[in-house]
């Protein structure tokens, strides 16, 4: 075990996978840049060379097809996008080609490729650098979708994604890169599938995705002070979805709050609620709640963005309502003196 940031854990995962298998390559616009792709690829070009840590043209769609082709021919590529929004240029290659390859050719060929993309937030990321569209990928049979929230899983899921014989979408959150945690050394894997119980509890299930797990844990701490024991589930894999893990928790608590930094309509939060609603053995004591984004694109202005993103306050408020306790007046008001457009006080921008 060593203490690493989430970004260092991703880099550690890359290094372990690349040492183990010479066919693993990293490719992406800016992959060997001086900042090491937010620190997630620092030093790797020096260790593995330019052929395995490779910059690329600004050609997302074409290059997604290129790495798909390479994956059909003995290479295990990780295609990296600085923002998820850029990967959208390649929806055909990801969803219509790679995701279908195994099925449409009757299981004879497989595409062991990782599409890694970073979810932006804050510091003026605005309408086109912060779209949380993970549900699009989770919708597609043939893809696997992972979104780690802690350094240990950032490494473990990266190694599992690279070694998986299928196309895997790996989404890391820009606001998690600096988060520290203990990470097992060596070839550590996190199984793609099971959710993680981030904190056990018996009164209410809070299911959160990616960065929102941190907000959910903060909410759980504040709820505990009021005598409510929240169980926080980290939905680190969106596809395959650990439906049994969700049901197990909600059967125990009878209350559900789904937290997703994404739009509600047809999103992952809807899938989580549907999973419970469809199960005859999981009655709810109170209608389920969703904490998601307002129904508008991400605003750029810090003042607007501060109101745009849900926080622990919103989760606490929703849970208290479920227990028939009123909100404190002004509970959702923004705290003075806090800069809501950056991930931590030390951050001075830009991304």
């Amino acid at each position, binding site marked *: 075990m060593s203490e690493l940031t989430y970004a260092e854990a991703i880099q550690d995962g890359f290094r372990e996978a690349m040492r183990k298998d010479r*066919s693993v*390559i990293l490719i992406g616009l800016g992959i060997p840049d001086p900042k090491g792709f937010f620190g997630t690829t620092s030093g790797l070009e020096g260790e593995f060379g330019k*052929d395995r840590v490779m910059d*690329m*043209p600004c*050609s997302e*769609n*074409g*290059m*997604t*097809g*290129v*790495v*798909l*082709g*390479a*994956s*059909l*021919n*003995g*290479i295990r590529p990780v295609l990296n996008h600085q923002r998820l929004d850029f990967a959208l240029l390649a929806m*055909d*290659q990801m969803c*219509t*080609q790679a995701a279908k*390859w*195994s*099925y*449409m*050719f*009757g*299981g*004879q*060929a*497989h595409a*062991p490729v990782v599409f890694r993309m970073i979810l932006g937030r804050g510091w003026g990321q605005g309408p086109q650098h912060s779209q949380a569209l993970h549900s699009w990928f989770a919708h597609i*049979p*043939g893809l*696997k979708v992972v979104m780690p929230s802690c350094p240990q899983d950032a490494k473990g899921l990266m190694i599992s994604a690279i070694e998986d*014989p*299928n196309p895997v979408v790996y989404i890391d959150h820009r606001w998690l890169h600096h988060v520290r945690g203990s990470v097992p050394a060596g070839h550590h894997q996190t199984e793609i599938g099971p959710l993680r119980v981030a904190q056990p509890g018996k009164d209410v299930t809070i299911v959160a995705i990616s960065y929102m797990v941190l907000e959910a844990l903060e909410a759980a701490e504040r709820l505990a002070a009021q005598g409510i024991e929240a169980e926080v589930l980290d939905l680190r894999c969106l596809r395959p979805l650990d439906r049994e893990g969700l049901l197990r928790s909600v059967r125990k608590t009878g209350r559900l709050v789904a937290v997703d930094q994404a739009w509600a309509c047809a999103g992952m939060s809807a899938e989580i609620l549907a999973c419970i609603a469809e199960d005859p053995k999981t009655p709810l004591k109170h209608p389920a709640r969703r904490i998601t984004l307002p129904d508008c694109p991400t605003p750029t202005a810090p003042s607007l963005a501060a109101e745009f993103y849900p926080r622990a306050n919103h989760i606490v408020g929703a849970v208290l309502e479920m227990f028939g306790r009123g909100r404190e007046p002004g509970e959702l008001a923004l705290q003075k003196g806090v800069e809501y457009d950056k991930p931590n006080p030390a951050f001075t921008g830009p991304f």
Partner: protein
Amino acid sequence: MLRIRLVEEAIAEAYPRQEMRCPVHLSIGQEAVAAGTAAALSRGDLAMSGHRSHAHYLAKGGDLRAMLAELMGRQDGCCHGRGGSMHLIDQSVGFIGAVPIVGSTIPIAVGLAFADKLRGQTKVTAAFFGEAATEEGVFHESANFASLHRLPVIFVCENNLYSVYSPMSVRQPSHREVFQQAQGHGIPAEQVDGNDPEAVFLSVKKARSRAASGGGPTFIEYKTYRWREHCGPGFDNHIGYREEAEFLEWKKKDPLETYRRKLFAEGRLTEPGEHDLSTRITAEIVDALAFARQSPEPRGLTHFVYADQP
């Protein structure tokens, strides 16, 4: 070429019986590009294609029984019935796949070549596509990358003048030839008669030597013509997008008949030889159709979604 023609005609004949319940895009009239290209490739070389891929699959050596069973949606089809006519694959002969989204296999083929270069292999990949694929951004992205890394890939462009019913005049500027686009990416490119199998063979052979010796990609535009309708077994000269006269003009340039006359004139083909050839091919087609018809219906709807599933 004769084998491709006879297979396609057999499909056209069987199709109205509704036993091939998928879109089919026949290659009749365009056989020379497939045959000439495949003859110039080595057996271990790779190829990919698009929606009109029967000729490319067969020329590369793809299994006929598996192709016809696939068209009939059977378990013994080359995709176990999951793909149909537009998704042919026979990896045992280096035919790595065909998909119908226009231009989408171009980057994938470039990726095959990229992997071969990374792994120090000496194989060459042929990417078959139509002229409309050069209108897709992904073609240019792929051409740029192939040129940048001098990848062992041959861009085999069949220009049959139409994208479904849309003529070149509404899609590309008349003062620029299709192959000139590749030159803009620093790729050696030329225009060749796509109905002359020997000209196709020689141009691909040259491109293959360049690719195999580290000289990078080549783009070849082959002028040719689709005889039948865009999709389906019939003719469509009467529906208004092209003239019967244009079709008849191209029919005079029939790649099979032209080459047949040449072979006879040069004494390389005799009547008994030709008869023997078509008899053998016809028997192979009869056998393959029978094989396909007796193949079971596929089972397991959700099989093959992931590599680690049955």
